[in-house]
């Protein structure tokens, strides 16, 4: 028998499974206080998923508000945090929306579907802003390459990302893949999508006009993903627990492709008043958020929802996370046209309710009232926790344990041996085995993609305007100093975008951390958020939105604190982009920026010595902005033939990557000071290698001098030989480079 509102009022003492649904006792009490009675089982289901960590941001809210408070005053932001995704102005009437989201826990349990539906979810967020999705990227972290479970998770997740994104016709334009033992039981699968629209095509989610209809369209609702956000994404894995597989959603990219085309056809015809995708928390989220973001209320007839499984209870329908569904608010006069478009694309579309002026969300099941709640209390006024924070007891010990004491390579032979070990390590080796599983050509606007430093897509074929994107994380730096580490992450993504010649303008993030109930993790989180907000303000690039993924830990062991930062840049003419591939023998090779012997937390320390300790490299945001300004000028004037940022593995690794990608050799002559191991593998920030052809050298030097950019001539492109030669120190043949870079990522 269905639990109605009147039934709830008449049976206050009923024992309800709030604990099993992931609610705490005081949260359950709060629901009773709000309603003035016990919740019905349907209301309890809604509150439980919407008040989960994943949906309510209850542990992170108090920190995340800094992103709004520290927004640079530059009018870039058209839609800020709070809608499905942030939107930025890129000029000429174009608006771009981009966002990154985690699907970590599902991807561990069922890697293919977990990763696939991660892509599907972020694409729908972009679509829900009214944008045409244009490209995807992914940031992946797995356990050590030789760990027993890594192959299962990696192969499944990569196939899932490819299988879903390829079937949608969205090019995958880059990302990162990192291996570290801390991710063995908690892989990170973060997916980014970028989309574009004209300013007047931006859609929002608030249902405002009384009498407008609530239209559910796309896939039918099934029993998959029930409680995904509360059970999966908000709890620590317990090895003894029963399989959580039924909580993972199953994706159908074909249906999503139809959703994209139908939604854009309706939106461009002006037939949609508001829209929201159904992702985490399904209909509970869509109905309560659209009502809460709007000015009135909403009445829903839940029994009209098309079902894949007729036996589903109303509670299950409200909690189901079945994929490929959208909810639109439609003016009744437009209904016939909207239904015709859905029919054209063979999509089921059903009016499930209407907008009211009651300020209540009322849900009926066969004419019986089963939900009667103020929608704000479900969607936006959930619990807020100011969780205890405590700097870890061993943080001082960790910082004191500098890599400076490690044995440094000194001779050319030793440096070469270390370099080859770096290049053949899964973290630096060529990722073609992964990226070749992704379509990068479809839509015909991909200008840059992996392994370029940033991905780039053309937005406007007439003017050549485009956007560049980079997605970067560095859990090692964040472990040593989460405040500075998060800033260095942002700096690296910013620099990668700048390398392409684009101007970085906005930031998104996916914050992957352990349990917020651990004060040490909470301290890491708070520090990282502050660092990121402060740096974003100083860079002049607003944080447009983001996602928090907590509970990435197995038992007591949390992952490395891993904010993954996405930076978006604009380029006026994509034809002027700079790649990292050069082609002209005789061109000069320059090192921009200053190198210090900064090897704490470096890739060298990790791979050669399995060491993590000390303090991360220092960051001078002014220097970083200057480097970006130089790159923008090099691109605009066509001065640079190729460029590559220096990060993981330092100068020597960056040179090796350029030689390997270009297939033409480089002859480097550097000072004795720079030729030391600690300098060659140092990860000092704000540095890049730039290759300048003969006819650009004068202008290049003038620009660097005028802008006061530190620059050192370090060599030239070889007329013969395809290897990397560092005079007086070492020589690496192209065969040696290829053999190292093409080492299989996973041992067979």
């Amino acid at each position, binding site marked *: 028998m269905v639990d109605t509102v009147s039934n709830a009022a008449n049976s206050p003492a009923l024992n309800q499974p709030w604990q099993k649904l992931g609610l705490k006792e005081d949260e359950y009490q709060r629901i009773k206080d709000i309603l003035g009675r016990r919740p019905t089982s349907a209301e309890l289901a809604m509150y439980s998923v919407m008040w989960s960590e994943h949906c309510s941001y209850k542990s992170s809210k108090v920190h995340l508000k800094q992103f709004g408070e520290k927004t640079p005053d530059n009018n870039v932001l058209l839609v800020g945090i709070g809608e499905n995704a942030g939107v930025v102005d890129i000029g000429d009437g174009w608006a771009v929306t981009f966002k990154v989201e985690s699907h970590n826990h599902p991807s561990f349990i069922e890697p293919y579907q977990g990763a696939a539906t991660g892509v599907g979810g972020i694409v729908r967020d972009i679509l829900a802003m009214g944008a045409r999705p244009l490209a995807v990227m992914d940031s992946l972290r797995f356990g050590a390459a030789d760990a027993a479970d890594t192959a299962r998770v990696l192969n499944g997740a990569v196939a899932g990302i490819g299988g879903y994104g*390829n079937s949608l016709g969205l090019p995958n334009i880059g990302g990162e893949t990192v291996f570290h033992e801390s991710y063995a039981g908690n892989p990170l699968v973060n997916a980014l999508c970028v989309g574009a629209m004209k300013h007047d095509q931006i859609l929002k989610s608030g249902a405002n006009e009384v009498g407008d209809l609530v239209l559910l369209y796309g896939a039918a609702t099934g029993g998959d993903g029930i409680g995904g956000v509360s059970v999966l994404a908000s709890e620590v894995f317990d090895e003894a627990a029963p399989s959580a597989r039924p909580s993972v959603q199953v994706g159908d990219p*074909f249906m999503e*492709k139809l959703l994209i085309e139908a939604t854009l056809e309706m939106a461009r015809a002006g037939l949609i008043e508001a829209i929201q995708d159904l992702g985490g928390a399904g209909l509970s989220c869509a109905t309560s958020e659209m009502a809460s973001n709007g000015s009135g209320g909403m009445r829903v007839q839940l029994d009209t929802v098309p079902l894949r499984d007729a036996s589903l209870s109303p509670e299950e329908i409200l909690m189901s996370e079945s994929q490929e569904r959208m909810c639109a608010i439609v003016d009744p006069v437009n209904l016939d046209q909207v239904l015709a478009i859905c029919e054209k694309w063979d999509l089921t579309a059903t009016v499930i309710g209407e907008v009211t002026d009651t300020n209540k969300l009322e849900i009926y099941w066969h004419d019986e009232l089963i939900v009667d709640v103020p929608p704000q209390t479900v969607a936006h006024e959930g619990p807020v926790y100011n969780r205890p924070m405590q700097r870890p007891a061993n943080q001082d010990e960790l910082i004191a344990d500098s890599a400076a004491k490690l044995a440094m390579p000194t001779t050319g032979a030793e440096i070469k041996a270390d370099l080859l070990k770096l290049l053949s390590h899964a973290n630096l080796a060529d990722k073609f085995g992964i990226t070749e599983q992704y379509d990068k*050509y*479809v*839509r*015909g606007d991909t*200008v840059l993609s992996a392994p370029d430093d940033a991905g780039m897509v053309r937005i406007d074929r007439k003017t050549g305007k485009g956007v560049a994107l980079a997605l970067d994380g560095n859990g090692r730096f964040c472990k040593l100093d989460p405040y500075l580490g998060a800033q260095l992450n942002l700096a690296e993504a910013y620099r990668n975008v700048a390398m392409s010649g684009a101007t970085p303008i906005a930031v998104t993030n996916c914050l992957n951390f352990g349990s917020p109930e651990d004060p040490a993790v909470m301290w890491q989180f708070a520090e990282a958020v502050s660092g990121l907000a402060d740096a974003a303000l100083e860079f002049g690039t607003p944080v447009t939105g983001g996602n928090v993924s907590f509970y990435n830990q197995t038992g007591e062991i949390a992952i490395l604190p891993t904010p993954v930062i996405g930076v978006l840049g604009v380029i006026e003419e994509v034809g002027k982009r700079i790649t990292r591939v050069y082609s002209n023998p005789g061109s000069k090779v320059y090192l921009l920026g200053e190198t210090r012997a900064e090897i704490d937390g470096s890739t060298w320390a990790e791979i050669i010595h399995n060491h993590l300790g000390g303090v991360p490299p220092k960051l001078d945001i002014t220097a970083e902005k200057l480097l970006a300004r130089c790159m923008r000028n090099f691109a605009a004037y066509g001065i640079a033939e190729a460029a590559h940022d220096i990060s993981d593995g330092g100068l020597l690794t960056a040179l090796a990557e350029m030689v390997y990608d270009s297939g033409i050799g480089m002859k480097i002559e550097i000072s004795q000071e720079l030729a030391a191991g600690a300098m060659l593998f140092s990860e000092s920030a704000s540095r890049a290698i730039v290759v300048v052809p003969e006819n650009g050298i004068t202008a290049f030097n003038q620009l660097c001098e005028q802008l006061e950019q530190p620059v050192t001539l370090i060599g030239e492109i070889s007329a013969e030989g395809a290897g990397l030669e560092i005079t007086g120190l070492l020589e690496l043949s192209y065969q040696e480079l290829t053999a190292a870079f093409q080492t299989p990522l996973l041992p067979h």
Partner: protein
Amino acid sequence: MTTRVGIITFPGTLDDRDAATAVALGGAQAVPLWHKDTNLNGVDAVILPGGFSYGDYLRAGALASMSPIMQQVIKAADQGMPVLGICNGFQMLCETGLLPGALTRNKDLHFICRPELITITNNKTAWTNFFQPGAELLIPVKNGEGCYQVSPESLPEIEAKGLVVARYNNNPNGSMNDIAAITNEAGNVVGIMPHPEHAVDGLVGAGVDGLGFFWSIAGVTV
């Protein structure tokens, strides 16, 4: 008069926009056609673009081969109209029987996206007459089911009749006899697994070696 090339969009078609761009770059006019259309709107040629039509459910290309517009395409092809099936379009042409054989899962079971060298072995078709025989082209493959298979009895026949239009220099997917593209006996219907429409603009594709296919249909000669 400008050649009018119909580009058919099925639900799940993905490279229709790219095919239209390539047709225009080649000098012909692209005409959008919809899978529920029951006539070809007077076009001179048809391209079945890549993608995952109908989600590739049942088998790749199988459902598309039953769609209303395909009945018109089959009729027109039998009367000599040039038809090019790219990737998923190639799979459809095999499913309809306009071309012999079938495309199965790649030998390593993965989707592969990368530029591959192919060699033109038949320049007599409507879609390859611009090329010299033996021309080497760099064209991207991007598919999960691109392994060309045909019965052991038919293979010698296909070879003897010169129906192989292009071969891979380094076979990426296990296709029999390195076959990348084939034609029918009349030479008007061509199925190709690599994507020439993604090799027409060096800024966003893999070079420009694919332009010759679109010059061929537009009637461009050197």
